[in-house]
Structures are given as C-alpha cells and as structure tokens.
C-alpha cells in the first residue's frame, strides 16, 4: 500500500500543528497504521503543501480556503480538545481507505 500523507496546519507550523500531529501519529500507530506520514505545516504555505498531501486535518475547519484545496479536509479540533478523537480517526480511515 502506498504511503498516505496527512498534513496538519496551524498559524506558524510550530506549536499547535505539531501538538495535533504528534497526537494523530500516536493514535494511528496504536491502531497499527504505520503507513501514514503526518506532518505539521504553516498555514501560510497551505496551497503548496496540499500539492504533496492526501488529506488536510484542519484546526480552522470554518475557513473557505480549506474547501478550495485539491485534497479533502476534516475537522481536527478534537485532537486539541481531546473530545471526539475516535471520530477523527474513523473519518481519516474512511477517506484514506486504511
């Protein structure tokens, strides 16, 4: 199976996105999905980053820009609040057909 690439964007690509990405990495690994690469990126470079990714896990799910990207996006806020993470994983599995 080819490697699936997920990006998580935040305002600087430093803090929030890395916290969410690290959590997502751990959750996916716990469920045995080793074939997924999760990367934190800067939202200012989102268009360029989306060209080399399969899915955006967004912490700005209201933004119109998310919907204009060539890749699907899902709401990643639960990764930050800790409420509803199981649903995020389920959506990711459905979209990436893991």
């Amino acid at each position, binding site marked *: 199976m080819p490697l699936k690439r997920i990006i998580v964007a935040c305002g600087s690509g430093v803090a*929030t996105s890395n*916290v969410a990405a690290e959590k997502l990495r751990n959750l996916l690994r716990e469920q045995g999905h080793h074939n997924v690469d999760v990367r934190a990126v*800067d939202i200012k470079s989102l268009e360029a980053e989306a060209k080399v990714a399969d899915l955006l896990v967004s912490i700005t799910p209201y933004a119109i820009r998310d919907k204009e990207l060539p890749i699907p996006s899902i709401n990643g806020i639960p990764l930050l609040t800790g409420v509803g993470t199981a649903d995020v994983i389920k959506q990711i599995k459905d979209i990436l057909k893991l």
Partner: protein
Amino acid sequence: MQAALDLIRSFLDYGPNVALPVIMFLLCLILGMRVGKAAGAGLMLGVAFTGIFVLFDFAFPVLGKAGQAMVQRIPGLRFQAYDLGWTVASVISWAWPYAFLMFPLQIAINIAMLALGWTKCLNVDMWNVWHKATLGAFVSALVGQSSPALALPLGFLVAAVWVVAELISADHTREQVYNLTRIPGIAVSHNMLLDIMWMAPVLDLIEKIPGLGKIKTSPADLRRRIGIFGENYVIGAILGLIFGLLAGYDLKGVATLIIQCAAVVTLFPLLAGLFARALAPVAEGAQEFMQKRFPGRSFYIGLDWPVLAGIDSLWVTGILIAPLILLFAIILPFNNTLPFGSIIAVSLVATVTVITQGDLVKSLLLSIIGIPVYLGAATYFAPYLTNLAVATGAIQVPEGYGMVTWLETNAAGMRLLVFTILDALNGNILPGLIALVVLVFCVWYYFPAMKRRENAAAQESGGISGNPLPYPEVASKAAKPAPTD
C-alpha cells in the same frame, strides 16, 4: 545533601541543551511514560535546542552586521536589538531554571478556579506556558535590582496573575471567537488577548468615526491576491533586500543577505517545530490529568490562537501593516528594535481580529495604533531576554552586535504597564503610579465593554449554546433588541 545539590548544580552548568533533555526525561517518567519514549522526548528536546543554537549562531551576526551598517550609514537610526521572532524567545525562556514549574502553577490555578466556579475555561494549551516563564524570569530580574528577596516570589505572583487573567479573558471573548470560527466548545486562552484591555476603549473611539461601517472590503479576495507574498521565505527575502539596501551593501552583499534572511525566517519555525514535538508528551499528559479531574462538568476548552488562523482579515492585516512596522521602527525615537522574525505580528493582528470581529478597516486602524506599543515592548524587554540568554547559557550572544528580542511580545501593552508598576520598587514611583491608574482604568472599562461585544457577537451567531444574549444585564444599552424568533 550538599553533595547532591552540588551534583545538580554542576549538572545544570553543562548548559540547557544537556540539562533540559534530562529534566524532560525525568518529567516524562513521572507522567508515567515508558522509558524508551521518555528518552526519545528528552533527546528530541536536545536536538531542537541544538538546532536553534546553530541557526542563532548563523542568524545573529548576519542581522547584527546589517543593522550596524544601517545605523552607521543613516543618521537617526538606533537599532541595538534584533527581533529574531517568538520561537527564539520561547527557547530562551525554557532555559530559565524555574520554567518547568510554570506547568504545575498553571494547572493548579486552573483547577482551583474551575472548582470555585470562577471560570468555565479548561486551558489545555500547555505550549504557551513559556509566556509565564518569561514573565517569571523578567519580573525576577526587574525586582531583583533593589529587592533580591522579593524577586522570585513576585516573579511567580505575576505569572499566577497572568494565568488567572488568561482564563478570565477566555471567558469574556468566547462568543466573539465563536462568531468568527463557529467552533463550539472552545475559547482562546492565549495571553495575547489580554491586550484587549487597552484596545477596548480605543476601538470604541475608532467606531465613533462616521462612515467607517460603510467601507466594504473583501479580505478573502485580498488574501488570494497576496498569495505567495504571505509565505515566510518570501517575506524574509523582501526584508533581506530592504536591509541590504539600507545598509549600503554592494550587489553581492545584497544578494547574499536576501538568501540568508529568507533561510533564517524559514528555518526557525522548522526547528522550533521539533521543540513542540518534544514537549507534546508533557502537554498531552497535563491535558489528560486536567480532563480526568473534571469529567462531565460543563466547561469549554481553552486553546492556542491558531484556531483563528483561517480568518482572512487576520493575515491581510498582518501583511499590510508589515511595512508600517518597519517604517515606525525607523522613525519612532523610543524604538531601537530592528523588526525581522515577527514582522508579521500575529499576536497583535490576531488580538485585533477578535475584538473587531474580522472587520478589515477597523483591524488596520487598531493595529496601526498597536505598532508603537509592540515596538516599545520589544525594545523594553530586549535587555531582559538577552540577559536571560547569557545568564542561562541558552544562547551565546556574540559581543558587539547588540541584543536579541522579539517583536511579538504577547499582550505587549499589559506587560509594559505591569513592569512599569513594579519598577516603582526600584524607586521609579511616578511612572509606576501613572501606569497603575491606566491599568485600573483598562480593567474597569474591560468588563462592561466585553459584555456588550459578547452580546453583539452572540446576536450575530445565535449564541454558542443557542442563547443570543449571554449578558442580559448590559442588554438595555444595546441599540438593537434581541430577535424574537
């Protein structure tokens, strides 16, 4: 006992890039992590620290040389401090020996305030604990000048007040954040929003300008047009070009500076990202610890500012005021900071975005008024940050170039007020009293102003929990009655 203390002391002398990974490793073990994972987190912290050192060693002389050349060539320029962005400031703050104690401080205060019903915000943003570390370290340095015995207690007291203020601020901005993001169950507990305390009266004055509401703008369109010019490396390159020309470099010098500046602005966030990864297990452990304490209670989650990062007017404002920040830095007589790493002053424009509810014209006006405050804070805190870096050995600041600082001092206005008040302890009584009066006025103005704005935001969005009037007690002053349907 003495031997153990000596051992710890000599160990801390190895420098933060050795000591901190070990502290991190032990902390992870305490949080119940497996040995292998804990060691990984510790190592990653050392890697991140070393990476920042290496880049700083490269970046600081590049910027310092250009800055000095500018100062020598153009009369009236006073650049002595170089803005290397918040990422560098955060790394330096972690090297303060008491920095990690800010985790338990923040958690304990939050839990107590939730239990007492003084807040409804559970702040799980453990990344921004570093702001409390800067406050603790800087207040200690300020107070220590005349009263060494008070230095540490007051440092922790101000940090504690900050934790309380962040939670209260999250409580009083959550309808405004919801109206912008429509994400239920969250608030922004970042300390940048504390500057709304001085911005609220200023914005009320701005809104009295006739015809302001009639100007129609399309931030989304502008954002699309800005496109690649909003990306870090392009901004860095443009700054490199401007600095090279101001410094009077030859063609080769200018071209080199363009590439160097683009590289520095791009690389600092990448390296700081490693830092975030290393701290992630601590943040997650703390978050789980807090959420376990309050199962099923009705609270909302306090998050870092990037939940606002999808709002177009935020970035458009940030990019449009960037040239003004540079211009103000050149002409304002009290400023000696050369803006660089935080030329897109997110902590200023994100705060403004919340209170103006994404209105581009109001955001621009309020941000422009904020620029001198932010430059003033960057200049004021430069010696504090530089001294902390030198004292802890966090970063070797090479002699003869000047100081390191960061322009995105969050809640710059509130920090300046608090430090001016505390400086009264060092004998500067009159400025301290004036600052105290200003602070009292800001706090007094804040609560009714916020309730009015929260009501207005809730009316537009329908309210987070379906209640369009969260503060009925100030509703009589509102012009529009609440919709009945």
